[in-house]
């Protein structure tokens, strides 16, 4: 196993930290503090529900914004600034570079997400002075958010291998939104009674990442248990999908002439 992706990943993580990417945590912390104080005032019964819902949604959105906006620049920036020239002259294969960049951003997102989760836990403890057994579901929800972020990062990276950051952002956002409706797209095909349309709709729905399965925020807020099957299914699904997208990105990027 090549050690190079790891070396590239650590440098990518270092870049994110030095570019003060983690400053978003301050905003998150302020938001959670504000929310904790406010819900304490207005709703004694449902304060936990509000805090968990708000916290998990914010973790997901903050992560998503970072994954897309940093993800689309990962390769582009290195090409534009030509830092890639000296790197690829070293014994580094292009796929190793891509996997390294992906790993680096995922590491950044993971650290960022875990820190936000600690913030959420602190806010939760502030409003209810206790942790419940059902709060373990929050961990699963955060884990699913991370899987979702891995998928989004891989897609952003893929698009950035052949298009500008603006287009890549639009493509990634488009796929993200469409991915939420992938089962609906299949449903639309079924109502047409046209076999060709049905087949196309089915193909599109299978091709799109199914993001809806990763969203368990509401279950976590209500303390509902998440079936173990869903956990491993989502894990395998995300791993396979990410692997395929990264392979496609490598195939595109390996043949690309660097201007």
């Amino acid at each position, binding site marked *: 196993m090549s*050690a*190079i992706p790891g*070396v590239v990943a650590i*440098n990518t993580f*270092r*870049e994110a930290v*030095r*570019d003060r990417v983690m400053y978003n945590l301050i905003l998150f912390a302020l938001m959670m503090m504000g929310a904790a104080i406010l819900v304490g005032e207005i709703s004694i019964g449902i304060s936990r529900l509000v805090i968990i819902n708000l916290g998990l949604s914010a973790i997901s959105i903050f992560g998503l914004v970072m994954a897309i906006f940093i993800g689309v620049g990962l390769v582009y920036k290195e090409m534009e*600034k*030509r*830092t*890639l*020239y*000296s*790197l*690829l*002259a*070293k*014994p*580094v*294969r292009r796929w190793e570079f891509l996997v390294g960049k992906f790993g680096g951003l995922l590491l950044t997102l993971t650290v960022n997400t875990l820190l936000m989760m600690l913030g959420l836990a602190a806010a939760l403890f502030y409003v209810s002075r206790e942790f419940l057994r059902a709060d373990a579901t929050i961990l699963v929800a955060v884990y699913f958010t991370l899987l979702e972020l891995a998928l989004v990062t891989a897609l952003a990276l893929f698009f950035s291998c*052949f*298009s500008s950051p603006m287009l890549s952002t639009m493509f990634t956002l488009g796929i993200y939104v469409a991915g939420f409706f992938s089962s609906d797209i299949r449903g639309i095909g079924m109502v047409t009674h046209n076999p060709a349309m049905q087949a196309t709709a089915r193909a599109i729905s299978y091709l799109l990442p199914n993001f809806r399965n990763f969203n368990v925020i509401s279950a976590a807020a209500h303390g509902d248990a998440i079936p173990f099957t869903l956990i491993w299914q989502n894990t395998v699904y995300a791993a396979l999908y990410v692997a395929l997208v990264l392979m496609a990105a490598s195939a595109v990027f390996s*043949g690309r*002439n*660097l*201007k």
Partner: protein
Amino acid sequence: MGFWRQRMRRSLDNLSLEVEDGEVFGFLGPNGAGKTTTLKLLMSLIFPTAGTARVRGKPIDDVRMHREIGYLPEQPYFYDYLTGRELLDYYARLFGFGSAERRERVTRFLKRVGLADAADVQLRKFSKGMLQRVGIAQAIVHDPQVIFLDEPMSGLDPVGRREVRDIIHDLKREGRTVFFSTHILSDAEMLCDRVGVLVGGKLQGVGAPGELVSMEVYAMEILFELREGCALPSSLDKRAKQVGGRYRAELPEDELYQALEELRSCEARILSVTPLRPTLEDYFFKLVGRDESATRSKEVASR
């Protein structure tokens, strides 16, 4: 430029070149001749539409070849959030060196390029010359056998240029092969065993610098100061131009001694006498002719 495909333009045409082990080879040519393109092809940053290349017997698309080479890109730019030390450490990691060896190498090579004092300064605060130096350090940090340098002297002050020349001399002394591109003839004259001249994507000639470019002196330049109240000697009357408090004159070699005599007789202070040789640009214009060159590049572009 298209969305999917970039427009095709022929940058190199039938380039066939062999560089010997242990030699310093200068790749000369005016801007836009295809020097950088050649180097990028060799680094597999871009891909040829046809043809092959090998470095130390290994095809250029073999990643193992990259263990044996070093490369300094043109106008290098590196991760500006890193310090010089961190940058070299990062690159050294890619070669799998252990931490103690990395530390030793990074310190040694920063010192070698004169950046020991700036080792812990972030690259965003580096001057162009310092970036060029750290670029050379990253190209040799793994002791490669073959080093490719794209315009290594560009952006350097005279002291920096000399230091780079010294580094190239040292690399040659150590038995390494250095292939560097430049459009400045004097660099090539001082350093190269052989040069190749590229014009409009075509190799126009390969050989020792003296053989290839006419080293004939076409004129002599005299720089002098006149004593107050003295008039210009008649032989220099029309040729000398005043720059600041000094005069500069260009004249044929066979008229030099007479002019010097006249200057001495009016007690002028002679600051320098310099033989003028053709520049690379002059050489190119002589070689292909300005108009012909333009026509050729048009032909190349439209093919």
